[in-house]
């Protein structure tokens, strides 16, 4: 495909160019406030993530950026244009990969791409060429002539990603790009998205997979209850909101709580879960030695690096949101 052309185009505008700018952006549905005054800057060529539990306002934000949902308040500019006024012109330069695939299951993979290309006014011949290139890119060239219906979830997702690139977009919006995929399919999608990122395509994605965010995003915001609760590069967020390492201790007793008191002072923060105790520490091995020095004998000990998941759970809580 000619994403390489795109890389050139995006590099030409310096990477500090702001493509998406939101100030005090609000979305209300009746009495319910889905997005409660957020500020966001997405720069050309970066991969930007919206992280958060279900109902955090990620998808509402994505729909506003996708110009299919007018903001209730605040300001939003996309490539210097106003979504309220320039919807079609902005959408012409976006590639959208929605949360649930809306391909036509009766059409072939190729027809799905070519008919979609026509919505952008792309000539038929060019549409066919691009479809072939993009199917190569998502490794589905040999399925070009098959109907979409019998394809696996991972293949459909790759078709949707290919479709989102058919107009050579400046920004690609991906709403939970790997939700519901098996591990192999997820890794293939990540790998393709990483390739796009390398080629300089601006990616904006939502996810609640921490590993996805850590792998793909240069910068991200954590949303909760319609607000942004943290912002930065994955590594920066981990440093700021968690410790370098986490020690997971499992005690044989039924009540882990009994041991929490005996661990006081061993970590910057102690979290007691029903089945284990987490110690947030700078040096995991030192902390384990200290635990043993207090004559405590956990049934199992695990020292690991702090992850974005720790940040996420710390910021948005462990309560299940449905």
């Amino acid at each position, binding site marked *: 495909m000619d994403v390489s052309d795109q890389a050139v185009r995006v590099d030409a505008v310096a990477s500090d160019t702001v493509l998406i700018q939101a100030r005090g952006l609000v979305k209300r549905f009746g009495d319910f406030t889905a997005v409660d005054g957020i500020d966001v800057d997405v720069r050309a060529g970066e991969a930007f993530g919206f992280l958060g539990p279900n109902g955090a306002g990620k998808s509402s934000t994505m729909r506003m950026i996708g110009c299919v949902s007018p903001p209730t308040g605040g300001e939003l500019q996309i490539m210097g244009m106003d979504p309220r006024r320039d919807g079609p*012109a902005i959408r012409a330069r*976006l590639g*959208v990969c*929605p949360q649930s695939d*809306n391909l036509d299951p009766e059409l072939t993979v190729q027809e799905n791409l070519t008919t979609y290309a026509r919505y952008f*006014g792309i000539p038929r011949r060019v549409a066919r060429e691009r479809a072939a290139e993009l199917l190569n890119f998502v490794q589905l060239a040999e399925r070009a002539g098959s109907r979409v219906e019998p394809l696996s979830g991972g293949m459909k997702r790759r078709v949707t990603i290919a479709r989102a690139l058919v107009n050579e977009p400046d920004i690609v919006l991906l709403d939970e790009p790997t939700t519901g995929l098996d591990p192999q399919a997820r890794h293939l999608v990540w790998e393709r998205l990483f390739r796009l990122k390398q080629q300089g395509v601006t990616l904006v994605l939502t996810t609640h997979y921490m590993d996805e965010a850590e792998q793909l995003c240069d910068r991200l915001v954590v949303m909760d209850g319609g607000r942004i609760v943290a912002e930065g590069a994955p590594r920066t967020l981990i440093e700021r909101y968690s410790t370098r390492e986490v020690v997971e201790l499992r005690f044989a007793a039924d009540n882990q709580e009994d041991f929490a008191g005996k661990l006081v002072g061993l970590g910057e923060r102690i979290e007691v879960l029903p089945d284990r105790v987490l110690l947030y520490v700078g040096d995991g091995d030192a902390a384990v030695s200290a635990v043993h020095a207090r004559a405590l004998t956990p049934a199992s000990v695990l020292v690991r690096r702090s992850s974005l998941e720790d940040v996420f759970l710390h910021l948005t809580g462990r309560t299940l949101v449905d």
Partner: protein
Amino acid sequence: MSLADAVAPPRPKTGLVGRFPVLAVLEYHLVAYRRTWRSGAFSSFLLPLLTVVGFGVGVGAYVDAGVGGVPYLDFIVPGLIASTALQIAVGESTWPVLRNFEWVKIYFGQAATPLRAADIVGGHLAFVLFRVLTSSLAFLLVAGLFGTLHSAWALATPLLVLLIAISVAAPVFAFSSAVRSDNYVAMLFRFAVIPMTLFAGVFFPVESLPVVLRWLAYVSPLWHGVDLCRAATLGLAPAWSVPGHLLYLAAWGFVGWLLARSQFRRRLVI
């Protein structure tokens, strides 16, 4: 660097589809139809053949007097052409619209592109008109073979059929985009399409109906279509003024279009 620096020049709009995006939507529906058109084409000849033979020839054999001096077969053929247009127009404006909102969500994919709600409704409506037109041409051909066309005005029937189609398809698009389940489609057929087909002058003149029902027939778009088609194939003056009929049907189509477009906007832009 300021936002303005990121603004690339707008992409040039090339070709017919670039200037009229509604055509790209029509093209999608035609591509999708290519998978099923063979069986569709067969039934669009079979259906008129069966109805003409069944009602016209079969029932007609018992209606010796004809209707107002017109042989029964010749009387009902234009009515059947109009009512078939109605059936296809409604059928193509109900389940497919629900499918594209609820089951396959094609419209949402289209709304993410430069297309506007008007393009999305307009392109799909244009496809419905295409379906009705091609089926009616098949019907007209069968009707001609049975010798039931008595006037050169019969050539105007395809245009009349298009008008009937838009007068029902547009409001039905508004209806289908407002409901969330196909139970409502069944109700639409039970309480609107079937009564219209039976009582709007297709099989017998509405003058035979009690006054209240007769007025319901006058209100329905189908009666106006039937009266026009009958005038065209028989070369007789219609029961009501031609401009009156045309304006009435156009009004249904126009109001339906406005409702459908605003309902589509409400569903697609939230």
